[in-house]
């Protein structure tokens, strides 16, 4: 491990101040991903700033919106009775993530900022544009069974690994960001960037920015929502493909629909085209399947991950069918 200075932040401003100046410390929350990255030397920060002592916890429901403190642990949010009732997709996505032990440590904000599982990103001896800009992408013509088919570029095809982010993107959740110049709010959907020519710039966060909370609005789609995750083993594994879906019903008609998918995009991926094919229709296998058939539009498979094109459609269909009571 690279030697680093350790600071425990006393206030959020400690983070924004220190963070916006060299050596730009890495933020330590649950540490479940950061410690892996430090031990493998994927990250070699000169300083770590520990935010676990900050008052960034708590789950508060207010004005039809759930405010989740950045340091709320995955297990706490997953087991919250309000979440289970009114935002089931959030609870399911969390419970299908990681293991019980990891969920007890890992935080909500940290989960959104976890780094890709691309094996080349995590092995410092191989080229990786995301880790070392300009060195090349080893996954393009390498082992890419787990890689993305949507939002890729010729510089990077790494899939975003978070399940929670997929659920949050489906529900129009937003994050509060405290920066050196004050507070801001960004949709989770806009938090992550596409790799483009700069895959090393993963989010819109600037040095010194600190996610303080996540806001998840209540909605008909949120209260009737579902998560389906396909993976190589039954638990404790990232998604090959996942789907977060929500259906707001008006009698026998779909008033509103939300569909977001994971394991297939370089960032959490919202499928508005699929949603629009659902809205105004009566739920049923044909409607679900017809909508899901558009899920992989624009997909660019690259070798080992070609199976994800069909699997994506099947997964979205399955999620809709299960939610719609057709499965």
């Amino acid at each position, binding site marked *: 491990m690279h030697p680093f200075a350790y600071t425990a932040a006393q206030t959020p401003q400690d983070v924004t101040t220190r963070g916006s100046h060299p050596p730009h410390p890495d933020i330590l929350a649950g540490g479940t991903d950061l410690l892996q990255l430090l031990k493998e030397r994927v990250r070699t920060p000169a300083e770590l700033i520990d935010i676990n002592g900050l008052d960034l916890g708590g789950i508060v429901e207010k004005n039809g919106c759930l405010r989740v403190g950045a340091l709320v642990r995955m297990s706490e949010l997953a087991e919250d009775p309000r979440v289970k009732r009114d935002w089931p997709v959030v609870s399911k996505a969390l419970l299908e993530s990681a293991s019980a032990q990891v969920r007890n440590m890992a935080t909500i904000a940290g989960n959104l900022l976890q780094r890709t599982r691309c094996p080349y990103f995590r*092995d410092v001896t191989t080229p990786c544009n995301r880790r070392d800009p300009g060195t090349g992408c080893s996954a393009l013509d*390498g082992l890419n*069974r787990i890689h993305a088919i949507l939002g890729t570029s010729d510089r990077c095809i790494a899939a975003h690994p978070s399940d929670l982010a997929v659920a949050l993107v489906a529900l129009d959740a937003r994050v509060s960001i405290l920066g050196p110049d004050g507070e801001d709010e960004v949709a989770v959907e806009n938090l992550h960037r596409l790799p483009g020519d700069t895959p090393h710039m993963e989010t819109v966060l600037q040095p010194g920015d600190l996610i303080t909370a996540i806001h998840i609005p209540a909605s008909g789609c949120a209260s009737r929502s579902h998560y389906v995750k*396909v993976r*190589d083993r039954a638990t404790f*594994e990232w998604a090959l493909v996942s789907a977060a879906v929500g259906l707001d019903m008006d009698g026998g008609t779909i008033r509103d629909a939300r569909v977001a998918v994971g394991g297939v995009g370089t960032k959490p991926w919202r499928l508005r085209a699929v949603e629009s094919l659902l809205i105004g229709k009566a739920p049923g296998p044909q409607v679900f399947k017809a909508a899901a058939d558009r899920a992989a539009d624009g997909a660019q498979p690259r070798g080992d991950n070609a199976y994800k094109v069909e*699997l994506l459609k099947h997964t979205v*269909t*399955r999620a809709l069918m299960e939610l719609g009571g057709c499965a």
Partner: protein
Amino acid sequence: MTDQSSAVIGKPVSRVDGRAKVTGAATYAGEFRPDRLAHAAVVTSSIPAGRIRALFADAAEASPGVVLVATHHNAPRLPYNSMAQRPQVDPQAGDQLRVLQGPEIQFNGQPIAVVVAETLEQATHAAALVRVEYDPTPAVTRFEEAAKSPRKPGAGKPTDLARGDADAALAAAPVSVDATYDQPMEHHNAIEPHVTIAAWDGDRLTLWDKTQWVGNDRAEIAHVFGIPEENIRVVSPFVGGAFGSALRTWPHVTLAAMAAKMAGRPVKLELTRRQLFSAIGFRPRTVQRVALGAEADGRLTAVIHEAVGHTSQYEDYAETTVEPTAMLYSCRNLRTAYRLAPMNINSPCPMRAPGVITGVLALEMAMDELAEAAGIDPLELRLRNYAERDENKDLPWSSKGLRDCYRTAAERFGWSGRSAAPGSMRDGRELVGWGMATAVYPTHRAAASASVVIRDDGTAVVRSAASDMGPGTYTAMTQVAAEALDLPVERVRFELGDTDLPKAPVHGGSITMASVGSAVQAACVAARARMRALSNAVDPVRGADYAGILRRHGLPQVDVEADAAPGIEQKRFSMYAFGAIFAEVRVDPNLGTVRVPRLVGAYGSGRIINPKTARSQCVGGMVLGLGMALSEQSEWDDRFGKVMNANLAEYLVPVNADVPHLDVTFVDEHDPHVNPLGVKGLAEIAAVGVTPAIANAVHHATGIRFRSLPITPDKVLAGLAKR
């Protein structure tokens, strides 16, 4: 009158070391703390072939806490004396990797420097500061390329077996199948990483090492350093899982001893999880062709089995992959071949049921294909080809409980309710499949010694330099000793894992119970006879009387040592454990996932010393087979010549949610020939046959043959799409 309290063989005694393990009191190799212990970090090559042009250690040497940096420039030249007889745990041809003896690079991940520092953190940081420049040379990193011109293993057991004319019989067979099966490279991934602590005292060396064979560890290091074996003591009381990875004495053991010598103080060297994918061995990728010919009624007329496994550039690691095929079924015409594909990779090594698990999975998947081709139930096909004697060695079986295994497991599974047509057993949207396979593993035995001390407090200590990597050696040996000594288990302590103890063979190949158990029994029988002689009794002496007898004679204790070795029986009988495995799978045809709700296994493995630890062995073996079938694979990148999923997050061993209801039965089997205890061992047989049973069940569910393991969702979806 017998004392029932001491009749403990066959009883489900809980692990005698269980409390020590769960409370942390058990001391594993890496937990010893000699004075002035320094910590080592290994620097490894990042190219698969070539030479080190320049190695810059100055930055590392200047880093805080660094004691030294050992490289090929400053490391002592070690004699690496050859051993009079190469231990069976080493490849039988080629030369072991010599560490820091020169600039040559033979694989990616080869140790090229060792940094010793006051703390582990200082050592690992400094290791990253070592800068290396290479002159790369062309490397063989593609298996397919290496397999084009494979070669015969340079030494070792013959793998090309033949009887009759298999090719002609295959061509003439009314029913035949001919297919190729691909099993990927797998790594052991024991939870305990490999670790060595080395401490020199003058020319005497103590090694605390993770090893399955302290005796060979001592011998190998003695030869590497050119010092007498008596100068070395190896201590290894607990092993946190090994699965064969700690059979050999790996280069890092030499590195630890070398670094300690150079530093003039004890050094601890623990490999990182990523390094465990290149510094120790692995199960080689093996591609196998199996062709079977049969009469219309399913009786085999031809068996051809050709396998190619990969090995390193410097050693021929050969497995007995094709050997079980020569004995498992009755067939007049047979031909087998095993070849090696040398690559720029570290040498493979045995991994639980080495070779056998690989060969049997291909044969048993092929048998399933033959059953389908002949229109015969898979179990019935096995029964029609039942081998009444070993047609390879032309010997009778010492015992064979396989018919009982088939019947017992089939009944417990409910096999008679199987509907033969693939895809015919749906449950809702899920495709249900039932499959089965045969399991087999040879019963070996080696010479072993054990000692007994009976003390005047009525307790006994039994010792042998054996190992317990998890199966329960401590417990089972305590039971054997307690019964032979007529003492309750609580009054007997078994000690192992130290070269100061009586010699034991390797803890591998399922031989420990047969070998060390026989020695323990012999020593205890002799000790009890000694007590009887002291007591002048006519009747057998009772364990409860030991204390009184010793006190009457004013003896604080008696010491007895005994040797036990296999005899002529090995030439008169063919000895194998057998088993039958039945699997149910559920395949989601849309998502491509395969889940296994239940596995049923029945085993004929001689006498079961402890049904509790025996069941654990079998359950563990089933989980290994499940992983091999569905998720485990070391993902190799041809371009870099390295494993890319080199961590426990991406190398997918089954988790609890993957593990189904596991049903284990031992059929009654009395074998008077194998060894004095009548045991056949369980470690390996438990892993064999599970993978093909699952693969065959997936075929039954889907109608598709998945001949490339593991059967992951992408393969299932691709297969179903072609249907």
